[in-house]
């Protein structure tokens, strides 16, 4: 593509096919074709812009070019001339270039996110046909079957994420991966590069366990050895036989959900065609390929009808939520999720920053033009055509833009590095964030656009210059109209800065609100760690429970430890299982979905460790773990769903669709288990499960700061079993902070944009007022000579400087009322039109503007009337 474009451009320039081909070859061979293309594109765009303007302005002037071919060499002559001019005032050039660079850099960095996340297609053949079916909830495996009979899709598959530990290849490693049903590889349309996809037999319960590896895992763990296919590997999802590798996915293949490193087949009961393991678990996602000719509306309608049937007999809250969200949507949209709102918001914010930067540079150029009117007049008087002068002015702007753009791309690379660490948990599809061709083209476009925006006013200024009046020009006689243009630019800058600052202010309030949320459990003085017990001595649920009981006893014995509990899903990490159930074994109509609720495996002392009080009934005890498996504790939402009062709930029975039944022995208040910003849901707390849960979080309540206990805790864990890896070790306060990472990210980005905008705006305020003061020294001198005191001069000058600020404040506030609406989905605990935020921002802007005007105003007040008058 690059070389094709290069050749086209050269052909256009030289008119010689052979030369064009030859030079293209040279460029390709030396690896410089992309760089050349970038320069040439700039050159052509520059030339086009300049030619157009010159032709427009100079109708009939002698500089009108006789349609020279677009040859890039001539560009450099013009550019060199402009650069020579800029080098004479390096301070001005540096400020302008850095300003442009900040604007362009921030835009390119944000665009790199937009491109990778929203625009880049999924790496699958006919990716637009791949959809996600969301019937209102994650689904149980049985539903894959239900949806297979639909007309809208050619193939439907289920996927569910899991984790496995790999041993035998150096350090034990935790792998991300998961199980897929038959049809998965048909949906994504990608086959393993080595070996084979799963076959129907792989899904039988009696089948030998098999696994497919990602290309990356194959490379770094197995050295890219193609003999790996057919061998047994030590990848364990939880005990059991070692799986045999049957395939390796191709390089560059990215899994749909996460960075999966392995795939296993779901195991299906041959009698019912339903999967055996985790049958009732609401942990499967449905993916499908659209049938040809079926519209998305049709598919949505079909899924909607199915969902109606499935949820018909569910509790009201569940049914409404499910039906409201049931949808079929393109996989890409699904993966992007609501990130597009936040990204559009960021893109909007960052373009405001660029606009402010442009206004600022325009202002600088205007001031500079003012100082050079004499030079222009002389050049004009000795015969330089107007068109020539305008072209020169444009080239100057374009060279500034180009230099700023190049620097900006460098800056963007730095910003992208910051994003790399900050966004992985905040935004989807971030692996593709890179400085690639589309991003560079965007950089080019932005730079050119910016150059035109800030180059326009000065170029028009040159146009309006009349040599006869200018030669009579003396400093200090700058036109009022000119000042008005600059004041308007400043007012605009302030208005945009106000919008950004209000956005940032709202994010600050959001972070405050999140910080003030009472989650319903303790988050201070808690240490959490995640343990994985892979040992072959622990094959049964009871054996694994025993191991974790020993851990609890060992840790509880440490000095400074108050209590210890374990659970399968830590609060505020967004994890958890859903499970379907029925109350008092009420039978459900055929085909109807059972209600489901979050399901948590907890140990005795869990509520105590997290300071969660009991509303009614009793806590889970050691006897519940060891003795007969028959109890469950539910939360308030669950109780509200089925019972009149807590007392009414106690003693009732809950049956899972696996056939297990339990009695409700306790009710606890709702707490924000999933996230600080989401309302509580119905939950069940169980002391035991019927399969071994090898990964659990241990929560240790300490008497003070938990950090110093860390080494002792590690040692205690290894005293019980030295082969158990400690996967994550955090304080609960850290987990809480981590759960607000995305708000923190948006706060940081918007905050830095706002600060940048305000600094640029204040530079504008300061610059314009200083200029005015310098220009009107004489007038001030006369006023003071006539008796005005310096206080009055100070006041008047400040008032003059603040006028555009107040104007900008008004426009900015009005703009913000509309603009902050895009922020709404990111806000928590604060309205998009929060009065406090608006007032605070207005206050901050006015105060900083006051400082910015005070410096030039004091200079004005210090004018010595005698001296000024004498210099004239």
């Amino acid at each position, binding site marked *: 593509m690059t*070389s094709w474009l290069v*050749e086209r451009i050269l052909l256009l320039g030289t008119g010689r096919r052979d030369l064009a*081909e*030859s*030079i*293209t*070859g040279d460029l390709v*061979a030396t690896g410089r074709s992309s760089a050349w293309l970038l320069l040439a594109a700039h050159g052509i765009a520059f030339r086009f812009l300049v030619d157009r303007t010159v032709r427009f302005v100079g109708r009939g002037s002698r500089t009108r070019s006789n349609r020279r071919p677009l040859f890039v*060499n001539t560009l450099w002559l013009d550019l060199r001339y402009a650069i020579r001019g800029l080098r004479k005032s390096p301070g001005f050039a540096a400020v302008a270039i850095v300003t442009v660079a900040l604007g362009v850099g921030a835009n390119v960095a944000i665009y790199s996110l937009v491109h990778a996340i929203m625009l880049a297609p999924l790496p699958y053949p006919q990716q637009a046909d791949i959809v996600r079916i969301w019937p209102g909830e994650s689904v149980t495996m049985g539903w894959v079957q239900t949806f297979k009979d639909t007309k809208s899709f050619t193939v439907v598959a289920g996927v569910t994420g899991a984790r496995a530990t790999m041993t035998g290849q150096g350090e034990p490693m935790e792998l991300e991966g998961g199980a897929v049903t038959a049809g998965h590889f048909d949906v994504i349309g990608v086959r393993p590069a080595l070996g084979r996809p799963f076959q129907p037999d792989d899904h039988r319960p009696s089948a030998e366990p098999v696994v497919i590896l990602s290309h990356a895992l194959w490379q770094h763990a197995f050295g890219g050895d193609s003999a790996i296919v057919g061998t047994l590997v030590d990848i364990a999802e939880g005990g059991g036989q070692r799986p045999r590798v049957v395939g390796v996915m191709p390089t560059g293949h990215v899994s749909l959900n996460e960075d999966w490193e392995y795939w296993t087949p779901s195991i299906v009961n041959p009698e019912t065609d339903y999967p055996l393991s985790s049958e009732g678990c609401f942990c499967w996602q449905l993916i499908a390929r659209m049938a040809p000719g079926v519209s998305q509306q049709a598919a949505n309608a079909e899924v909607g009808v199915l969902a109606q049937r499935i949820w018909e007999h569910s509790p009201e809250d569940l049914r409404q939520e499910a039906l409201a969200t049931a949808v079929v949507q393109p996989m890409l949209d699904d993966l992007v999720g609501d990130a597009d709102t936040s990204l559009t918001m960021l893109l909007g914010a960052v373009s405001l920053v660029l606009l402010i930067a442009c206004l600022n540079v325009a202002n600088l150029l205007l001031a500079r033009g003012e100082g050079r009117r004499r030079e222009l007049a002389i050049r004009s008087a000795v015969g330089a055509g107007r068109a020539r002068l305008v072209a020169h002015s444009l080239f100057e702007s374009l060279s500034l833009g180009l230099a700023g753009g190049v620097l900006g791309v460098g800056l963007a690379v730095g910003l992208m590095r910051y994003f790399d660490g900050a966004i992985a948990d905040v935004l989807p599809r971030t692996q593709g964030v890179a400085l690639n061709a589309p991003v560079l083209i965007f950089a080019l476009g932005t730079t050119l656009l910016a150059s035109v925006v800030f180059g326009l006013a000065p170029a028009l200024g040159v146009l309006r210059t009349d040599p006869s009046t200018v030669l009579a020009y003396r400093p200090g006689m700058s036109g009022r109209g000119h000042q008005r243009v600059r004041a308007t630019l400043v007012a605009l800058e302030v208005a945009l800065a106000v919008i950004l600052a209000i956005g940032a202010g709202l994010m600050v309030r959001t972070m405050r609100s999140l910080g003030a949320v009472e989650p319903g459990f303790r988050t201070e003085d808690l240490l959490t760690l995640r343990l994985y017990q892979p040992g072959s001595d622990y094959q049964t649920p009871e054996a694994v429970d025993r191991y974790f009981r020993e851990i609890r006893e060992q840790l509880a014995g440490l000095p400074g430890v108050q209590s210890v509990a374990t659970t399968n899903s830590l609060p505020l990490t967004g994890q958890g299982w859903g499970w379907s159930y029925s109350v008092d074994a009420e039978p459900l109509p055929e085909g109807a979905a059972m209600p489901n609720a979050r399901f948590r495996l907890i140990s005795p002392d869990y509520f105590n460790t997290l300071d969660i009080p009991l509303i009614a009934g009793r806590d889970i005890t050691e006897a519940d773990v060891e003795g007969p498996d028959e109890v469950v504790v539910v939360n308030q939402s669950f109780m509200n769903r089925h019972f009149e009062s807590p007392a009414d709930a106690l003693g009732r029975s809950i049956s899972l669709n696996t056939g297990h039944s339990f009695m409700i022995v306790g009710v606890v208040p709702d707490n924000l288990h999933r996230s600080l910003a989401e309302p509580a849901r119905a939950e069940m707390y169980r002391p035991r499960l019927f399969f071994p849960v090898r990964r659990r979080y241990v929560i240790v309540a300490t008497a003070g700061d938990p950090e110093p206990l860390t080494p002792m805790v590690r040692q205690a864990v290894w005293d019980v079993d030295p082969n158990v890896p400690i996967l994550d070790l955090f304080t609960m306060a850290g987990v809480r902070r981590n759960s607000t990472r995305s708000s923190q990210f948006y706060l940081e980005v918007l905050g830095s944009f706002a600060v940048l905008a305000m600094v640029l705006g204040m530079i504008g305020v300061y610059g314009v007022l200083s200029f005015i003061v310098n220009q009107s020294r004489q007038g001030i001198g006369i006023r003071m000579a006539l008796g005005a005191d310096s206080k009055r001069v100070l006041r008047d000058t400040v008032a003059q400087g603040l006028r555009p600020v107040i104007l900008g404040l008004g426009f900015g506030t009005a703009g913000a009322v509309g603009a902050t609406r895009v922020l709404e989905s990111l806000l928590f605990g604060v309205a998009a039109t929060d009065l406090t935020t608006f007032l605070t921002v207005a206050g901050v802007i006015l105060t900083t503007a006051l400082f910015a005007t005070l410096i030039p105003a004091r200079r004005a007040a210090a004018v010595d009337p005698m001296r000024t008058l004498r210099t004239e």
Partner: protein
Amino acid sequence: MGNTKALGEFEHLLLLAIVRQGNGISGAEVSGELASKTGRHPARGTMYVTLDRLERKGYLSSEMGDPTAERGGKAKRLYSLTAAGLEALKRSGQALQAMWQGYESLLEDA
């Protein structure tokens, strides 16, 4: 070809580069030779324009070579000196030599 005009300095250098490198050399190679012997890095456009002019004057002939993979499948134009080119080079060289005669000592510390 009957063109008796003297060669420009740059033209002279280009023709010499082709003599030194042998016939059938590409523009890039001419450029490389020039860079290594004189330290000059002419712009690519200047290079090709001059080569083109020399060809039009009949001092050079050229043909397209075979495309290669490392050039992105692009062929390159290969230049060879013609008899007229050699003649012109000789003439220019002789003129230069004639002018230098007796002043070679200037070269020593130049």
